[in-house]
């Protein structure tokens, strides 16, 4: 591809503002005292502190993984502050939230204010380390749905936390998960009781604001027998020159006949488009367990941000007839690197998984799809369909695909399709000849490429995702 596409790549990050707000921040550094301090600030019961310390000691014994196809200088874990929160706390209503903070959310287009509440989205907003406001609480309570900050759930429902925390992603799982287990500060907690269809989309927005802090949120969603929930998370961060670490853990538990739909629109600051300086390191462990029969977990992700993404939302299909799905659009532009994919582990009979992965690389972006499908011995008649498509825009970017397949039961049916395409100059010319601008042509083609995934997103967020793709690709061609 020649001239049109070689031209400078110039992307602007809309969410790069910093909110000027007073913060309570722990000094940088990590040791057992810091963990005790976090636990104390959060007034946690003893079992939580024990678990954190256990995780920390585990983490000390582990090594940072190097198998992912991403390249970054060593992280100094002692230079990071592990707790930062806006000063005013103990909020009962939105009126008490710092107006600066609300202003931030307005800029982010988050429906925190009254009028936007009508849109039917319940929002839990996590600002640096604490959860700021959860809307729609009363309405949800009527249905017995618990949707609250993780730290609140530790206080109000310690029995649920104790029962489920670490059951899907154990504290020993991997380096970043162990670190998260030791220092996580907040996140969301959701419990949907038996037979309840959650009356609205639940949504969390994460934002890293303070400098030199890490964000380690922890989300736990439990869908009890026969229940249904659709959950969406969105993420942004200010533009900063230094890299910031974001190491989250998300655990999903689906009981018999329950369905969890988890959607992510991730737009952390990707770093400076010209130099690659700064940006978020997004090292995330997400996993769902389909514990019992006929349960279903569906991951949909649109990943356009972060300097580095290391993320593999996975499903453990334990219950018979359970279903796991992974729909992903990942975009790397400029200097972004992403190593992402999924893992489907089939344990139960007649389990079924679907993987649709769409990777788009532009600029000097590097992207790796890493997908594992494991069919265990007792998983009779398991089925997997994987489709993994890459699109390249320009000649300096790269796409790599690593499918790992491990089948231990001969009745398994596996289907795998992969393709690589590029946006051809002839396609752009054809569109131009019909009066369509190059930028519109690119978004037309990219949206066409992604539509199988976008259609899995809740309506209002599908539109948002499309716009995000346009912004993220601005100037990628022409």
């Amino acid at each position: 591809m020649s001239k049109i596409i070689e031209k400078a790549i110039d992307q602007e990050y809309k969410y790069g503002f910093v909110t000027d707000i007073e913060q309570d921040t722990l000094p940088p550094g990590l040791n057992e005292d810091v963990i005790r301090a976090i636990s104390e600030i959060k007034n946690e019961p003893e079992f939580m502190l024990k678990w954190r310390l256990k995780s920390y000691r585990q983490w000390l014994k582990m090594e940072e993984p190097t198998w992912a196809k991403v390249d970054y200088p060593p992280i100094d874990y002692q230079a990071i502050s592990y707790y930062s929160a806006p000063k005013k706390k103990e909020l009962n209503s939105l009126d008490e939230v710092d107006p600066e903070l609300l202003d931030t959310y307005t800029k982010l287009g988050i429906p925190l204010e009254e009028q936007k509440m009508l849109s039917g989205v319940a929002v839990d907003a996590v600002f640096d380390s604490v959860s700021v406001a959860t809307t729609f609480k009363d309405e949800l309570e009527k249905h017995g749905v618990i949707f609250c900050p993780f730290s609140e759930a530790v206080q109000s429902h310690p029995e649920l936390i104790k029962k489920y925390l670490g059951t899907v992603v154990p504290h020993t799982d991997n380096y970043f998960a162990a670190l998260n287990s030791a220092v996580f500060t907040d996140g969301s907690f959701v419990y949907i009781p038996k037979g309840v269809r959650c009356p609205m989309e639940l949504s969390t927005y994460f934002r890293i604001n303070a400098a030199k802090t890490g964000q380690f949120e922890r989300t736990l969603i439990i869908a009890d027998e026969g229940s249904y929930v659709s959950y969406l998370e969105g993420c942004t961060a200010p533009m900063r020159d230094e890299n910031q670490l974001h190491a989250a853990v998300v655990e999903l538990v689906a009981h018999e006949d329950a369905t969890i739909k988890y959607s992510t629109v991730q737009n952390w600051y990707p770093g400076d488009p010209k130099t690659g300086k700064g940006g978020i390191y997004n090292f995330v462990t997400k996993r769902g367990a389909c514990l019992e029969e006929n349960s279903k977990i569906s991951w949909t992700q649109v990943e356009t941000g972060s300097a580095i993404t290391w993320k593999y939302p996975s499903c453990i299909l334990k219950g018979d007839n359970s279903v796991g799905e992974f729909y992903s659009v990942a975009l790397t532009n400029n200097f972004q690197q992403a190593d992402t994919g999924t893992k489907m582990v089939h344990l139960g009979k007649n389990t079924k998984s679907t993987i649709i992965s769409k990777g788009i690389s532009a600029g000097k972006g590097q992207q790796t799809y890493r997908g594992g499908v494991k069919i265990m011995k007792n998983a009779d008649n398991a089925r997997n369909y994987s489709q993994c498509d890459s699109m390249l825009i320009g000649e300096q970017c790269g796409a790599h695909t690593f499918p790992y397949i491990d089948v231990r039961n001969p009745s398994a049916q596996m289907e795998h399709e992969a393709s690589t395409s590029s946006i051809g100059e002839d396609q752009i010319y054809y569109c131009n000849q019909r009066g369509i601008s190059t930028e519109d042509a690119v978004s037309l083609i990219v949206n066409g490429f992604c539509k199988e995934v976008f259609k899995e997103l809740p309506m209002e967020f599908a539109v948002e995702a499309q716009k995000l793709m346009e912004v993220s690709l601005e100037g990628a061609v022409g």
Partner: protein
Amino acid sequence: MLEIKNLHVSIDNKKILKGINLTIISGELHAIMGRNGSGKSTLSHVIAGKEGYEIEGEILFNGESLLGKSPEERALAGIFMSFQYPVVISGVNNTYFLKAALNAKLKANGQPELDAMDFLSLIKEKIKLVGMDESYLSRNVNDGFSGGEKKQNEILQLLTLEPTFAILDETDSGLDIDALKIIANGVNQYRNSERGILAITHYQRLLDYMKPDVVHAMIDGKIVKTGDMSLAKELEKKGYSWLID
């Protein structure tokens, strides 16, 4: 409306067009016939604004120079080209594509854009004119279309966008006898005193339906003979060698 003066075009120092002069007045249909590789498609692309050519000479459209304008600007100024080899755009819905194109034009003209419903009723009318089934609207742009279907789709775009000047580069090639007649009828409906057409073809049959005002014979980057319909008949009978001394 279109005036080409002493146009020389080369690619990678290879001369392809060697002094083309051509004037098309509103309402006229000019046909170009010529040997394979004589430069007909190159001429079309140069008018449409494709990149990658070294160009000398002049191309004026309604008195304004086209050279230096992007393909998109030329399209929005009213130039349309039916491609000899229409491009496949996988994943992009045909209707959606056409709607984007029409709305780009409406927007450029300061007219209100059409919403999905209005566009659908418009396109359903237009598609009848080219004899295509409505199912082609929900397919992806030219993806898996047969050779003839691609050409029909080009004419569907022409009839929807209603440009002031249309280049038809071998639109007849690949069309079956019935389709050719339908397409020619469609194009004839598009014609009026304000619109001009440059039709490139190898066969007299299309011209029988379209009745060109002027016919040119092109050999090796030059227009070597210009005449009326009788020239087309002569070329069909004798080929091109008699035109070379």
